C-alpha cells in the first residue's frame, strides 16, 4: 500500500469524513427533541445517543467506501470470528447488516429483484438475495460497497451462508475461508472443539497472505478484549430491562445493536455501549420507560421486521405493550462470558460454536423460558420469518410449550425480516389486535 494512497484514505475518512459526520451529529444533538411525527404520548423521547449511532454507522460505510486506499477488505457472516481479521487490520463488512439497512430503507425488493432476475429463487433468504443482488448490480443505499479481498463464512448461523459465500467467491474471484461449526445438540465434544480450532488456525495464514501482514498474537488479544467488553456491556444494557417500566424496548435494541454486530472488536464500540448504558441507567433513575404506559411486557423471538420496525413499535406502544426482551438481540450478549482474553483461542472456539442458531430448538425454548421468568413477561410474539428457516423451525412446538407449560399466551406472526412481499399488514394487525385483546389490553 503506497504512502500516497494511505494519505488520501486518511484525509477522506479520518479527517474530512469524520469531521462532516461529527458536525452532523453535533447539529442533531443540539437540535435534540423528537423527530416529526414522534408519538410522544406513548413512546419515550428518542435516545439521546441516536445521533451517535447514526454517526458510527455512517462512518463505518464511509471507511468502506475508501477502504481500498488503505486497507484490505473482508466480507464476513454475522457469526464469523471477526477478531482474527481485525487483528490483521481488515476493513470488515457484514453483508447481513448491509442487507438490513436495505430492508430498513425498503430497498430490498428492488435489490433482491436483481438476484431473482439472475435466477436466484425467492425461497432463498432475503439477506442472501439482497446481498447477491447488490453485488451483481452495485445497488446500495450506502453509496458504494468496497469489493472484498477475502471472504469469511461461518456456518454457526445457517447453511445458507455456505452456498451464498461460494457464490460471492466465484463472483469476486477471491479466497473464501469457511469455518464449519458442527451443530451442537448438547455439550461441545472435545473432537468438535479441536475440529473448529484447527480450522481457525488454518485460516490465519490465508488471512495473512491476503492482508500482506503478519498475525500478531498480542493484537489478537487486544481485539478479543474489546469484543468481550462491548458484548458484556451490551448484555448489561439488555438486562437493565428487568426494571419496570423497561428503559429500552426491543425495537430500540434492534437499532442500537448495529455496532455490536459490525464493529465488534473496535475501541469506539466499547465507548459507545458504555455511553448507552449510562443513558439507560439515567432512564431508570428517572423512572422513564421506553413505552410510557407499560401495561404488558412481551418477548420477541427471531429477527425484526426491518421495513416495519417503527409501525410495530408504535402499534404496540399505543396499546401499552412493551416488548422488552428478544432472543435475537440477546444473541450478541449472551456469549460475552465465554470470551476469555487469557485463553483467546479456546474462548474463540467456544464463543463461535455456541450462537443460539447452532444449538437447537430445545436450547432456544429454554432461553425463552428463562427470559420470561427473568424479565417477568406476560407473553411472547414469535416472528415466523419466511426467510430464516433455522430461526423459525421449531417455533410451533416452542409456542405450544410456552402456552401449555408456562401458561403464557404466545403468537406466531408470519412475516419476513427483509422482504415485504411476504408480509400482509392487515393480517398482522388483526392477529396482534386479537392477541392483545386476549392479554386484556
Amino acid at each position, binding site marked *: 500500500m503506497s504512502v500516497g494512497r494511505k494519505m488520501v484514505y486518511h484525509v477522506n475518512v479520518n479527517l474530512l469524513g469524520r469531521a462532516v459526520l461529527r458536525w452532523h451529529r453535533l447539529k442533531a444533538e443540539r437540535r435534540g427533541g423528537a423527530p416529526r411525527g414522534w408519538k410522544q404520548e406513548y413512546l419515550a423521547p428518542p435516545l439521546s445517543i441516536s445521533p451517535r449511532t447514526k454517526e458510527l454507522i455512517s462512518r463505518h460505510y464511509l471507511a468502506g467506501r475508501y477502504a481500498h486506499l488503505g486497507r484490505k477488505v473482508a466480507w464476513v457472516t454475522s457469526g464469523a470470528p471477526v477478531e482474527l481479521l481485525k487483528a490483521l487490520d481488515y476493513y470488515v463488512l457484514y453483508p447481513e447488516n448491509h442487507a438490513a439497512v436495505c430492508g430498513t430503507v425498503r430497498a430490498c425488493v428492488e435489490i433482491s429483484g436483481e438476484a431473482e432476475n439472475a435466477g436466484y429463487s425467492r425461497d432463498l433468504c432475503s439477506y442472501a438475495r439482497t446481498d447477491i443482488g447488490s453485488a451483481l448490480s452495485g445497488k446500495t443505499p450506502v453509496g458504494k460497497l468496497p469489493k472484498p479481498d477475502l471472504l469469511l463464512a461461518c456456518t454457526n448461523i445457517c447453511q445458507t451462508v455456505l452456498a451464498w459465500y461460494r457464490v460471492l467467491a466465484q463472483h469476486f474471484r477471491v479466497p473464501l475461508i469457511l469455518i464449519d461449526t458442527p451443530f451442537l445438540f448438547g455439550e461441545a465434544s472435545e473432537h468438535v472443539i479441536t475440529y473448529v480450532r484447527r480450522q481457525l488456525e488454518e485460516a490465519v495464514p490465508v488471512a495473512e497472505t491476503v492482508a500482506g501482514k503478519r498475525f500478531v498474537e498480542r493484537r489478537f488479544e487486544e481485539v478479543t478484549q474489546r469484543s468481550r467488553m462491548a458484548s458484556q456491556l451490551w448484555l448489561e444494557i439488555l438486562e437493565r430491562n428487568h426494571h419496570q417500566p423497561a428503559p429500552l424496548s426491543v425495537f430500540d435494541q434492534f437499532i442500537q445493536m448495529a455496532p455490536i454486530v459490525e464493529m465488534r472488536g473496535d475501541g469506539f464500540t466499547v465507548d459507545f455501549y458504555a455511553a448507552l448504558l449510562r443513558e439507560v441507567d439515567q432512564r431508570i433513575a428517572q423512572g422513564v420507560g421506553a413505552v410510557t404506559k407499560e401495561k404488558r411486557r412481551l418477548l420477541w423471538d427471531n429477527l425484526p421486521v426491518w421495513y416495519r420496525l417503527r409501525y410495530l413499535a408504535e402499534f404496540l406502544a399505543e396499546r401499552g405493550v412493551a416488548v422488552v426482551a428478544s432472543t435475537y438481540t440477546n444473541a450478541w450478549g449472551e456469549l460475552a462470558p465465554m470470551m476469555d482474553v487469557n485463553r483467546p483461542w479456546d474462548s474463540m472456539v467456544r464463543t463461535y460454536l455456541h450462537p443460539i442458531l447452532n444449538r437447537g430448538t430445545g436450547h432456544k425454548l429454554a432461553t425463552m423460558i428463562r427470559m420470561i421468568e427473568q424479565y417477568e413477561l406476560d407473553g411472547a410474539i414469535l416472528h415466523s420469518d419466511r426467510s430464516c428457516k433455522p430461526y423459525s423451525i421449531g417455533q410451533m412446538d416452542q409456542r405450544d410449550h410456552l402456552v401449555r407449560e408456562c401458561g403464557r399466551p404466545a403468537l406466531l406472526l408470519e412475516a419476513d425480516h427483509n422482504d415485504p412481499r411476504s408480509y400482509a399488514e392487515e*393480517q398482522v394487525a*388483526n392477529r396482534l389486535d386479537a392477541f392483545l385483546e*386476549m392479554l386484556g389490553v
Partner: protein
Amino acid sequence: MSHAVRGLGIDVGSTTAKMVAVGSNAEMIWHWLEPAEPRVEEQVARFLDKAAAALGPLSGIPSVATGYGRGLVPAMRRVTEITCHARGVYREFAVGVTLVDIGGQDSKVIRVGSRGETADFSMNDKCAAGTGRFLEVIAQRLAVPLERLGPIALGTSEEVAISSTCTVFAESEVISLIARGVAVGAILRGLHRALVKRVVAMIRTVGLVAPLVLSGGGACNPAICQLLAEETGMAVHLPRHPQLVGAHGAALIALEKDAD
C-alpha cells in the same frame, strides 16, 4: 319494541356482512345477513336503517364492530373476530369449547376457556386453503352451486385424494381429474377432506378440547361437519345461527360496555 335493544354488533367479513341486536338479557332480538359489498360504509348505513325500521330509533345504543371491515364501521368500539366469536359462542354454550370458524376468506380456531376467555387461537396463514374460498373457486370451476357442494360430496362413498391444499394447485388438480373422467362427487368429497385436514392441522396448534363447535359459512356445509367429526373423532356442535356468532359476540360486548 325499540326499548328492548341494548346492544348492536356488526360483523363485516370478507364474504358476508351481519348485524345482530341484543336485548337487556343478552338475547338476540334481531339479525340480518347479506353478502358483503365493497362499499362497506354504505352497506352498514343500510343495515342500520333496516334495524331502525324494525326496532325503532337506535341513537345512543352502544355498538361494536368486528370482522375485516370493522375499521370502516362507525361503531363505538372495534374488537377483533377472535374476541367476538369467543364471547358469542360462550353465551350460547356456557362452557369452554374449541370453536372452529370457517369463513369465506379466513378460518380460525379458538380455544375458549371455561370462563369464556380466549385461551388460545390460530388463524389460517396467508392463503385461502382451509377457507370457504377454496371450495368457492372449485365450485365455480365445476359449475356446481355452492350450497350443493356438501350434499353432492356426501351423496357418494367414492373419494379421490386431493394432494394439494393450495387453492390454485387444487384447481388444476381438479381439472386433470375431470379430464380423466373421475366423478364429480368423488372429487368434491376429496376436496372437502383436504380442506378439513387443513383445518384439523390448525386445531392441533391450539389443542383440541371437547366440545367442538363449528361456526361460519362452513357450518352450513354438511360435508364439512361430517368430515370434521370423522377427522377429529369428536361430535361437532353447531350454534343456532352459525354465521352470526361473531356479530352476536360483538353485540354482547357492546352491551357489557354499556353496563360498565
